[in-house]
């Protein structure tokens, strides 16, 4: 920590009464209303304001995914008042969504309605639009301004439309990315279902960094599993913008063993980097070749969620540089970035890492707010991938926060044993499911609800591509 400024916990900057009212912060979550202390509030508002301990610090968390929702809970448990800003009533989780694409799982098992937040978390269903780090204010979509003592920014990723020539939102309707779970996941699943036996599936995989490094290869595995089971004369071509990838030897060994002639992977030095998409012809172009697909899955280049870009918290790379131990931005003070949007160096952009970072970040923010030195402790990441429903592999690592980076610990970490027995593969598949249940429970406070299941079933019934 090089930040030596005083942590001013006096009432935040005043905002207009109109803005206070517009905030529409109603119901039980009002304990966080000390945020609005600067208002010349009406009596009911004043009464609510007085409930909050005087000068109790306010933290705004932007983003209600694995990082943001977890961080909000842990912050609140330590007594900090939190306003959690996220526009969505429901969250569709990416981990395990490759099983949905392969028709091995229903999308409702991925769908969560965040709930059960501690009393001192106020959830605001708005899109956060702009962060003014100097004023320590966040402007929401409807014009409301929130003040903060510290801000936790967890906006996840945005897809960089047109960074890959020809791949825009229109093209994605024909050639899904399915890299944000939801309708895109179902579109890809349904296209695979509609494809004739003997068809060709083509995947385009971007260069690093992107969300979930082993994700494309798990997806290739599970699509291959679907094809092998239902359409065995089909083929899957993976066009990769790099030569090396996460758990490569384990994946490639398993592909050979399980899906012999079904998956054809080509890397950068094979000239396989996709440089142009022709959505009208369902065709992917490399510098040397073109691939006409019956079903195409284009995973495009990515960057931090848009608010990080527009508020200049991301650097030229499109991601947010941080001081490792505290996750505080190196570009602006009092803003901490966690999850996929952060540059956490060796730590991958994974839900596990997001959750682990969230817990530590909450501790660090709480300490900084009470003028305690931040801790310096290691973090871990574990990413499970499924080759098939009974065959799991993992990569795990322990990371140390140095002055400039989250660095792997020498002698630790690595991938599952090459010659592990089938019982270990089965165990790791089981552990993957358990991890998903645990982490979603921790972040969203719920298991997928029956009501939600019914609604989704109706909504997606008879969907035809």
């Amino acid at each position, binding site marked *: 920590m090089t930040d030596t400024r005083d942590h001013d916990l006096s009432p935040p900057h005043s905002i207009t009464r109109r803005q206070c009212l517009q905030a529409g912060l109603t119901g039980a979550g009002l304990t966080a209303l000390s945020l609005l202390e600067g208002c010349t509030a009406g009596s009911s508002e004043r009464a609510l304001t007085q409930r909050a301990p005087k000068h109790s610090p306010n933290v705004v968390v932007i983003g209600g995914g694995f990082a943001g929702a*977890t961080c909000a*809970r*842990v912050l609140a*448990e330590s007594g900090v008042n939190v306003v959690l800003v996220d526009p969505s009533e429901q969250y569709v989780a990416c981990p395990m969504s490759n099983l949905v694409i392969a028709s091995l799982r229903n999308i409702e098992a991925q769908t969560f309605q965040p709930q059960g937040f501690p009393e001192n978390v106020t959830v605001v269903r708005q899109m956060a639009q702009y962060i003014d780090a100097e004023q320590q204010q966040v402007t929401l979509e409807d014009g409301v301004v929130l003040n903060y003592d510290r801000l936790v920014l967890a906006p996840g990723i945005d897809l960089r439309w047109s960074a890959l020539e020809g791949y825009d939102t229109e093209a994605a309707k024909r050639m899904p990315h399915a890299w944000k779970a939801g309708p895109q996941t179902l579109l890809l699943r349904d296209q695979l279902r509609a494809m004739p036996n003997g068809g060709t599936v083509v995947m385009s995989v971007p260069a690093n960094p992107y969300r979930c490094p082993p994700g494309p290869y798990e997806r290739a595995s599970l699509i291959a599993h679907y094809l092998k089971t239902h359409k065995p004369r089909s083929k899957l071509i993976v066009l990769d913008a790099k030569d090396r990838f996460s758990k490569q030897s384990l994946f490639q060994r398993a592909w050979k063993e399980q899906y012999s002639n079904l998956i054809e992977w080509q890397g950068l030095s094979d000239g396989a980097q996709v440089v142009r998409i022709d959505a009208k012809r369902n065709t992917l172009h490399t510098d040397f070749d073109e691939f006409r697909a019956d079903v195409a899955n284009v995973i495009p280049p990515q960057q931090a969620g848009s608010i990080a870009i527009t508020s200049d918290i991301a650097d030229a790379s499109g991601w947010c540089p941080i001081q490792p131990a505290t996750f505080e931005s190196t570009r602006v003070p009092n803003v901490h970035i966690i999850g996929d949007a952060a540059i956490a160096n060796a730590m991958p952009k994974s839900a*596990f890492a997001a*959750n*682990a970072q969230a*817990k*530590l970040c909450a*501790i660090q923010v709480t300490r900084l707010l009470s003028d305690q030195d931040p*801790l*310096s*402790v*290691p*973090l*871990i990441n*574990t990413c499970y991938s499924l080759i098939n429903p009974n065959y799991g592999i*993992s990569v*795990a*690592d*322990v990371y140390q926060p140095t002055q400039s980076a989250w660095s792997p*610990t020498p*002698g*630790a*970490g*690595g991938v*599952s044993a090459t010659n*592990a027995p089938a019982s*270990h593969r089965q*165990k*790791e598949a*089981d*552990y993957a*499911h*358990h*991890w998903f*249940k*645990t*982490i979603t*429970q*921790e972040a969203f406070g719920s298991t997928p609800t029956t009501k939600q299941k019914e609604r989704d079933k109706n909504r997606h019934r008879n969907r035809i591509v």
Partner: protein
Amino acid sequence: MEDAKAMAAVCNGCHGPLLSSPLSPPLLHNQPADQLFTKLITYKTGQLEGTLMNRIAKGYSKEQLRAIANVLASTTSPSSTP
């Protein structure tokens, strides 16, 4: 102590106490500290072979593993933050 709590918080990612089944990794809370510590050390040295605990345990010093074991053992009720 604060360091140990922060280190132990990430164990829950896989060993979450909120939901458990015969297919899940073992629960950690309410196990005696010595038992947890011994197990972590045997993972670290490779005497015991797990699916991935060897890879994790090797990233911590003996003192850190002792501190983590103490925190986990003192966590009596399932919670997201031991």
